[in-house]
């Protein structure tokens, strides 16, 4: 049998018919309340206050609440601020830059290996050279200007860039903008 003190701590939830009270606890409180006038009165009190508060008319949202909020966020530089505070936004924007830097670093490492081996390197587009080369990167242009030309020209065309790397062929400069196929 529960004591009054033990029962009190559960009376609020019991009054609310909280579904999370186990059946055993519910039965114990019920038995205690049936035999204790003070706790019965307390339970009634809990229910009455709950009903009064539950009948309270909700406050209305003032007209223009969302518009004022939007203006305030804009005034505080909401979008720009959020972009700086939110790593997901700005880190996503850095992905292309990071990829380009990794690629350049990787290609530099490849050409260093090539030059130390004493093999000739250049910008030939011959497919036989590709077949003979043990590493396609051996065919990557050694000149920084040529590399920059390839990267810049292919910046908006992933397929072309990949093909250039794999074949070692520097795309011909056609005079077209890089983003036009």
């Amino acid at each position, binding site marked *: 049998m529960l004591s009054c003190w033990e029962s*009190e*701590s*559960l*009376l*609020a*939830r019991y009054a*609310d018919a*909280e579904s*999370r009270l186990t059946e055993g606890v519910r039965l114990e409180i019920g038995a205690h309340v049936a035999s204790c006038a003070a706790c019965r009165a*307390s339970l009634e*009190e*809990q229910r*009455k*206050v*709950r009903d*009064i*508060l*539950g*009948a*309270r*008319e*909700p*406050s*209305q*949202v*003032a007209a223009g*609440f*969302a518009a*004022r*909020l*939007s203006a*305030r*966020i804009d005034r*505080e530089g*909401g*979008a720009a*601020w*959020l*972009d700086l*505070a*939110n*790593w*997901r*936004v700005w880190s996503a924007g850095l992905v292309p830059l990071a990829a380009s830097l990794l690629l350049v670093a990787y290609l530099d490492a490849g050409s260093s290996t090539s030059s130390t081996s004493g093999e000739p390197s250049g910008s030939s587009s011959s497919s036989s050279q590709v077949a003979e080369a043990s590493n396609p990167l051996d065919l990557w242009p050694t000149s920084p200007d040529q590399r920059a030309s390839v990267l810049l020209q292919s910046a908006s065309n992933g397929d072309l860039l990949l093909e250039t790397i794999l074949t070692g062929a520097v795309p011909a400069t056609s005079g077209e903008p890089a983003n036009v196929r």
Partner: protein
Amino acid sequence: MDPDRDLVEAAGRGSPEAFEELVRRYQGAIVNLARAMTASDADADDLAQETFVRVWRSVGKFRGESTFKTWIYGIALNVIRTYRGRRARLLQIFRSPTIESHTGTDPLERASSDDGIETSMAMRDLIDRALATLPAELREAVVLRDVQGLEYLEIAAALDVPIGTVESRIFRARKRLRPLLEPLRNK
């Protein structure tokens, strides 16, 4: 499963549309919470605005360890506590008789004689003034339960306290409110 999860993730990626939808979903609840906690329409509006500004700033860092609902309630309660702390300090400094009379010891008697209790708005005013007499921790718990309709587990999450503490606070809050709400019992 958090019903707001998709919206929260989109808002976290910077989508204004997703954030606007979250505002639409929760503005009523947050304004109502702030009104019940402060007994002031003007303060409730300001505090709800501040809550959503903070949500906007930090939604990108929300990790989904709780539901968005309990998270935003937690933010709102922090905003309200900060406001109340600042207001209490100002009251100590200025000792304004006008403000003191607003939160005096017998608000219900004054409200029932001045305002009447015929309308639901007057009843709400009486209830909010009664709530204002409670210590903050009791008021928060009973408002979240009886005014906002949160489950006990949600209240425990929003207040970051054990569920037994929530039960005890609600019990004590209702016990203290009963005599203050006596004029409304038969309305």
